[in-house]
């Protein structure tokens, strides 16, 4: 990999009167454009580590580099203006309007008024809030989710390369949190900021992180790697325990439907004759076929048994297909659809709704087995 954008080198933080350091001799690199998630049990020093980067906490020892430049001794205020900062409680300035809040850092940097104004609208648009409605409102008029959107907009206003986020979605209800996480991931695809993200929630870490650092007490790195590797090859018992029992299920959120081999279930294209259908079904190993309309869109599950049971026209036999999957859906979504489906399979369609194949519990299971088999030999 290239030169790290942020480098912590042998950084320690200890407080007088306490023996164990809050952060002990930590060396960690953060690369350009990645989301590095620091995750660990409470009190492990993950927030302290984050606050060492923008020097809200001054390190007792060690060096901090940004863009290869030692920033351990520069004016902390100057450093912080280059680094976006988002915290769980948001911390909007209650006496200032949303627009003024967002303008904070640009103003500190001395941008001219027109540019700041333009930027405020741009930022509100970015976080899907209508500038006409929200510019002149005050923080007390916002819901928790809206406030954190503004918090993110404010942190991004001066276009910093680096964003530090301390449990940004921790105080938000689960449904809104999920939506904000998704929106944020979409934003990050375009913005490509270098982000250090702190959470205590391993699921959030897996969802948000390009890499995850699992920390134990004293901010010691237990394992730092991609979510895939951490899930399939936990470094030690601590990591294993921290991942919890659902590691395989968590791993399903990382894989997409397109990553597994689709089951070849024969398709019957309308209009189709009964005899023709029966012949196809006989040759199908699952004794099942997918009935498609003339545009190749899946309509119903047809089985040999269902066809034999009735004299109804073929488009009325079998079971209707109500939900389908696309290759970009996660395997977790796929599992949900399969469990709901009457035949234990889910149809996969392309963007225009055309039939691609089926995904079955077996194919999912064999992928999981081959994955964990791989890790056993690794």
């Amino acid at each position, binding site marked *: 990999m290239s030169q790290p954008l942020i480098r912590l080198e042998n950084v320690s933080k200890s407080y007088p009167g306490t023996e164990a350091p809050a952060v002990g001799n930590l060396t960690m690199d953060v690369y350009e454009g990645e989301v590095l998630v620091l995750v660990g049990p409470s009190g492990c020093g993950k927030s302290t580590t984050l606050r060492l980067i*923008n020097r*809200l906490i001054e390190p007792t020892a060690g060096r901090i580099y940004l863009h290869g430049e030692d920033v351990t001794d520069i004016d902390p*205020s*100057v*450093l*912080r*203006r*280059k680094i976006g*900062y988002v*915290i*769980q*409680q*948001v*911390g*909007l*300035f*209650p*006496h*200032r*309007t949303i627009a003024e809040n967002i303008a*904070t*850092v640009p103003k*500190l940097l001395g941008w001219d008024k027109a540019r700041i104004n333009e930027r405020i609208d741009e930022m509100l648009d970015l976080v899907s809030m209508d500038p006409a409605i929200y510019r002149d409102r*005050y*923080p*007390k008029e916002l819901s928790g989710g809206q406030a954190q959107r503004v*918090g993110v907009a*404010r*942190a991004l206003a001066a276009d910093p390369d680096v964003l*530090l986020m301390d449990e940004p979605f921790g105080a938000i209800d689960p449904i809104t949190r999920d939506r904000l996480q998704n929106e944020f991931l979409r934003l990050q695809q375009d913005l490509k900021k270098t982000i250090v993200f702190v959470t205590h929630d391993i699921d959030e870490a897996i969802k948000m992180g390009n890499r995850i650092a699992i920390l134990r007490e004293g901010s010691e790195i237990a394992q730092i790697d991609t979510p895939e590797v951490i899930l399939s090859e936990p470094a030690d018992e601590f990591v294993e325990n921290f991942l919890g029992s659902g590691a395989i299920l968590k791993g399903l959120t990382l894989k997409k439907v397109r990553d597994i081999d689709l089951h070849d279930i024969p398709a019957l294209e309308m209009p189709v004759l009964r005899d023709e259908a029966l012949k196809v079904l006989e040759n199908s190993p699952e004794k099942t076929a997918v009935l498609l309309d003339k545009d190749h869109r899946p309509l119903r599950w047809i089985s040999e048994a269902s066809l034999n049971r009735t004299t109804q026209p073929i488009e009325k036999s079998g079971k209707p297909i109500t939900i389908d999957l696309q290759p970009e859906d996660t395997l977790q979504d796929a599992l949900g659809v399969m469990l709901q489906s009457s035949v234990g399979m889910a149809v996969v369609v392309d963007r225009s709704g055309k039939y691609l194949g089926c995904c079955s519990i077996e194919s999912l299971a064999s992928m999981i087995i081959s994955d964990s088999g791989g890790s056993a030999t690794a």
Partner: protein
Amino acid sequence: MSTRLDQIQESTLEHSLYVVSVLGLASVFSIALGVLTRRSVLARELSLAITSVFLTLPALALFTIFIPLVGLGFAPSFIALFLYSLLPILRNTITGLDGIDSSVLDAAKGMGLTSRQVLLRIQLPLAWPVILAGIRVSSMLIVGVAAIATLVAGGGLGDFIKSGLARLPLPNSLEAIWTGTLLCLVLALIIDLILQATKRATISRGIR
């Protein structure tokens, strides 16, 4: 009659001068003291203890103990009123600064405001409603207590009350007492209105 009016005008002006000058100086001093001691518990408690003593002392004593140092008239009255009005403003400054959500300060620092900018742009504006409430309490105190200035030859509306008291039960003595008292009330009302207007003009809609 015109001399009586002149006298009323003069005494009211004197009284107002006490209120405005003392309130101005005491506000600046107390807010500054609250800001300077905000990081040290010891300094804060000490300044609160000392200013409490001023407020606890009998007002009459406070007016007289400075006479040996500064003589009679405006000076001892001003000093006494000044000391008397510190605690409410100091107390509220400390409460106001303490009551600010720590996440707001964390965010402010984290975005690169210097501690001076945090103080001037975030802390003081957010503490201002509470500080202003303290100023209001002090203003009411001063209007009332300034009536004692007359006893150290400091003038003010106390002159009417004192002369009325001295002439009781002669004609017009009660009227003099009432004149002084009612004018104090009117003055208190006017100052309150001014402070209300200040509040409306200086407190952001976001924290009202």
